[in-house]
């Protein structure tokens, strides 16, 4: 499922809304999650999962072509932990 398929589905289920508004709603949700993470906040959607950022410390990497050592600065990566309820839905026998 892509973002546009998700929007189409919501628009179908909500004929009283303009497609353009449905698009703004979906975009707002993901933009707000992005903004929160960019500020260093966590986003917890209980039952679905939680987004947070993790630090990757600086390290010495290597240029794979030349084998030359290069310093790779610290960076932050977004991380998603699946919520309990969704995890259980994926594994119904557990």
């Amino acid at each position, binding site marked *: 499922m*892509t973002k546009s398929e998700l929007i189409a589905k919501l628009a179908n289920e909500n004929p009283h809304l303009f497609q353009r508004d449905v698009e*703004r709603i979906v975009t*707002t949700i993901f933009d707000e999650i992005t903004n929160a993470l960019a500020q260093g906040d966590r986003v917890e959607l209980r039952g*679905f999962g939680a987004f947070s950022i993790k630090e990757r410390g600086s390290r010495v990497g290597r240029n794979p072509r030349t084998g030359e050592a290069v310093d790779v600065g610290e960076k932050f990566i*977004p991380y*998603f932990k699946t919520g309990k309820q969704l995890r259980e839905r994926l594994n119904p026998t557990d």
Partner: protein
Amino acid sequence: MTGKTVTRAQLGESVYQEVGLSRNESADLLETVLNHMGDALTAGETVKISSFGSFSVRQKGERVGRNPKTGEEVPILPRKVLVFRPSQVLKNRINEYRRPGDGA
């Protein structure tokens, strides 16, 4: 960096402020979005949100684990796990604030 936790309430409020719907309907739509994503993933589909990232389900095989307290070996059953792959746009957004002046 404020270190807060954003929840459904704040996301619902953002939706409410963005579109002229009631708070209730905004919250319901947020819930519906999450449910549709969960349904697709449960059905084994990948969910791709452009400029945000993609969620996919990966099948993990059985392996032998160990109870860290007792050292006892226990089988870890095959299971499905959800993997989130952030898009390059999201990765860049997260690093741009944190490395001001760093050209890398």
